[in-house]
């Protein structure tokens, strides 16, 4: 037993290095996707202090809109543009109808409002596009399919999916674009001001409503990218929502306000759960992926409640 826990997994990693590399790659890809979902959370949390539970469903909703439009005869790229438009309308609507009347409410109320939003979007999405899973229009969008295999060692093989590579590239580009947006543009600077202090931002003439609509839209774009990538890996359906929960432990590790934190947290969870599942999961019958990330987060919280990058919390009275 002890051998199985402490020795055997490492022996396996050493004996099958190609497989270990493949596991790392899968962990990396999963981590990138978790990080993308988490990124959407962070954007909104930074600007408005709202923990957007609906981010997961926005991923599905964006993907579903894209595929649904295409199914109804809209060409792929036009569908993409229209979907971006839909996400913009959605962002504006959420800001106007949900967020604005709830300004200054306690966190927990805002969280619950986004849970309500989640249910609304599930019903709305299924009502319009139907409840069955849909195939992502990967090829139509010009995204690469297929895979490349690298020989490794004597009979080793590492297979990289082109779509996964594309996901990684797009994720990096998005993070880069967000960094530029936050640091170089006027709206970006305003966003950071809002994140620091709502009142102060207001007093220097920044329109909170506008800013919030913009962050929700940005989160919507991130959701769309995530939806396309994850949809290409499996299917677009509301069952994806449960996977979006994985962003929560990611956020706990990375902190709620840190974009690099979201990325690193995502990667830790991605690597961690794949390695745990493949090398240790068998000991308890496998399938531990469904809860492993949460337990990591829980244990982590006990020792470092402020997250990886957060500062130590000093309580005041």
């Amino acid at each position, binding site marked *: 037993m002890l051998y199985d826990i402490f020795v055997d997994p490492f022996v396996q990693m050493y004996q099958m290095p190609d497989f270990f590399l*493949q596991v790392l790659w899968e962990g990396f890809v999963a981590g990138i996707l978790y990080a993308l979902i988490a990124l959407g959370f962070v954007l909104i949390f930074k600007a408005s202090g709202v923990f957007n539970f609906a981010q997961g469903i926005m991923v599905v909703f964006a993907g579903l809109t894209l595929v649904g439009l295409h199914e109804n005869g809209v060409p792929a790229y036009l569908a993409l543009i229209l979907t971006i438009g839909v996400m913009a309308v959605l962002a504006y609507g959420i800001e106007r109808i949900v967020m604005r009347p709830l300004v200054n409410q306690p966190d927990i109320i805002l969280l619950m409002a986004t849970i309500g939003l989640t249910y609304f979007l599930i019903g709305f999405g299924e009502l319009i596009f139907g409840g069955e899973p849909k195939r992502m229009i990967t090829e139509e969008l010009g995204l690469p399919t297929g895979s490349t295999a690298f020989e490794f060692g004597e009979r080793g093989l590492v*297979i990289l999916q082109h779509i996964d590579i594309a996901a990684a590239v797009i994720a990096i580009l998005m993070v880069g674009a967000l960094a530029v947006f936050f640091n170089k543009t006027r709206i970006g600077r305003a966003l950071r001001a809002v994140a620091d202090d709502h009142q102060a931002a207001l007093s220097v003439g920044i329109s909170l409503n506008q800013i919030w609509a913009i962050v929700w839209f940005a989160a919507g774009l991130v959701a769309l990218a995530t939806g396309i990538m994850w949809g290409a*890996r499996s299917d677009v359906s509301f069952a994806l929502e*449960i996977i979006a929960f994985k962003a929560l432990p990611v956020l706990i590790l990375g902190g709620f306000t840190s974009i690099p934190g979201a990325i690193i947290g995502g990667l830790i969870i991605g690597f961690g759960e794949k390695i745990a599942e493949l090398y240790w999961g068998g000991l308890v*019958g496998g399938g531990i992926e469904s809860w492993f990330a949460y337990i990591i987060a829980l244990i982590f919280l006990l020792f470092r409640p402020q997250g990886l990058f957060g500062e130590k919390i000093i309580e005041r009275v």
Partner: protein
Amino acid sequence: MKHLKTWACATALAVGVTAGAVAPQPAQAQDTNYVPLLTYRTGPFAGSGIHIANGMNDYLQMLNERDGGIGGVPIAIEECETSYNAQKGVECYEATKGKGALVYNPYSTGITLQLIPKASVDKIPVLSMGYGLSAAAVGDVFPWVFNVPVTYWDGASVVINYIADQEGGLDSLSGKKIGYIFLDAGYGREPIPLLEQLAEKHGFELLQYPVPANQMQNQSSQWLNVRRDRPDYMIMWGWGAMNPTAIKEAVKIRYPMDKFIGVWWSAGEDDAAAGGQDAAGYKALNFSGVGMDFPALQDIKTLVVDAGKTQTDPASIGTTLYNRGVLNSVIIAEGIRTAQELTGKKVITGEDMRVGLEALNLTQERLAEIGLAGFAHPMKVTCEDHAGSHPVFIQEWDGERFVKVTDWIEPMTDVVRPLLEAAAADYAEKNAPWPERTEACAQ
């Protein structure tokens, strides 16, 4: 503290609102046979459920349009949405049983299990066609439950039989590795005892890859494990969104698709299409006809679908799951017809339906008569055997459609039947006092 005070309103609300709104609709008019269909067109398993629902609905509707029902009595069809959710399943059951329901087809193992003990109490049979509790095939213990034409254990043994054929006999299974990837729920776990027993008997190694229900779309770990273990064959027990994801992942790790065999619930065109051309060679069990070259299906197309009387997408007629739904309705319809013949009544009850189903004898000739020659294997239900048929065939995905590649393959009845009987006895014991069979055998 006035917290309790307000629950005044709660009950008032509950009573007031519901009493008006959900008062049971009057029982169906006396000149119809009422068949409630528990379906799911939404929820995580909608992808599979929609086609089944359409197939079931359309065939019965076609009978109404073409023949004016069965034996001259129209069928009252009512769909009730369960979303594959046990809460709603029970609600649908309670809402429809009072209207003279003849038979229930829950399309969910969970809901089937809830209904099994109720069937004998409420005198309405449960028809779980190729799903539910395998042990229910033992008619002596479960007089009210039918799982024609085949149980999961039959299916699992057919897969092993087929693999043995490919390898040159059951003896050559020795030393082979067979992987089993399944939905980690009662449904996927059910075949494990049989597979384990066969593994011991024939000397192959059984490797298990459970897929948790909330990880259906995130299977890369399971398939990495497959890649590491390199099983010679893979068997899949999947449903809903699990199927297309699994096929994609299999393609991804370059698993030889011709050695990948799914159960009949993993046999949907949509499932295999997720892997596209690369999935060519993927095999699945099946017991209902492939394609739409059957007169009855043509009738459905002209009388129901083209007439705009259903939600069915015309392209889906003839697909595996749609045809599965049709077969389910064929069994219902033939059960009603048999019951009418045996009882001499036109409008029958659930009890009559049970008798009809138990005497169901769907021969080649009869299949041809109803315009479905070769659509299914002949079925003959007996009082002891509520599965009544058992053989299944294997179809293969050629990149665009499923093609039947084997003839009907017999299951290992010698292994399966004792297991079924043991399981039935176990069920009866655990649910003691389980009622003895009192229903007379009509044969």
